């Protein structure tokens, strides 16, 4: 560790943590994040194509990804800003800011990715903090892409419009 780190305070209504032991060396996992050509192979679920337009691994650097349903037009996916980089250990980015710390129009998320050595490979933790406007933003941007969310939501809405006892 080269710097001291703030530990995010998690709000269970807004934030999430995904933690996984990955059977690969830390350098390999880091590389899958830090190399744009590799990142675009897993960042968005197939068959949607991903293009990493910018991944400037310095504080204030741009993190921009775009996606395409059919390989034709690429539309915005993430437009964010790198906040912190400890090579091989930690990557923090947000879409609350754009390149060079310019405030973004539709912020909702900060992600803290940490990698640590583990006897079986790498302990990988993604902590994702959301603003309370996340609901609206993700509806339009992300929820749809990975989501089975829509179906269940429609069903829930249908059920909930008729209040039960």
């Amino acid at each position, binding site marked *: 560790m080269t710097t001291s780190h703030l530990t995010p305070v998690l709000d269970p209504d807004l934030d*999430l943590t995904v933690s996984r032991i990955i059977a690969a060396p830390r350098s*390999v996992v880091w590389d899958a994040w830090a190399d744009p050509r590799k990142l675009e192979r897993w960042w968005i679920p197939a068959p949607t194509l991903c293009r990493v337009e910018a991944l400037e691994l310095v504080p204030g650097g741009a993190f921009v990804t775009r996606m395409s349903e059919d390989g034709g037009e690429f539309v915005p996916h993430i437009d964010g800003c790198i906040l912190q980089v400890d090579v091989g250990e930690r990557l923090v980015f947000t879409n609350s800011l754009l390149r060079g710390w310019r405030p973004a129009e539709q912020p909702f998320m900060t992600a803290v990715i940490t990698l640590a050595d583990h006897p079986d490979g790498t302990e990988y933790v993604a902590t994702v903090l959301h603003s309370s406007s996340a609901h609206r933003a*993700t509806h339009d941007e*992300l*929820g749809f892409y990975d989501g089975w969310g829509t179906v*269940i939501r429609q069903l829930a809405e249908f059920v909930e419009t008729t209040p039960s006892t």
Partner: protein
Amino acid sequence: MAQYPSAYPERLDDLFQALADPTRRAVIARLGMGPASISELAEPFAMALPSFLKHIRVLESSGWIRSQKNGRVRTCTIDESRFADLDGWLADQRAVWEQRTDRLESFVTTSTDRKGRS
């Protein structure tokens, strides 16, 4: 670091599997209007009671509904906390990041092919 409870995705699987059937979806929709007895629930369906009860059991074991026996009548109630689990953008986001982590994991473990790894 706290591991996210691994039970979560499996439980989601159960929840969705339970929904993958029109009869069960209809039962959930009906229960959204309020509790109902098994016979009330079974009425609209042209199927034998044992077959219908199978659907009820799937819904119960997956957590969608609860049932309670009062004398000779078993009454079913929807468990609304299941909707709270699923009917939310945070659940969507969790799924996004879980699946993203799945893809990262599979990318780094299959494309490196280093010794001693399976």
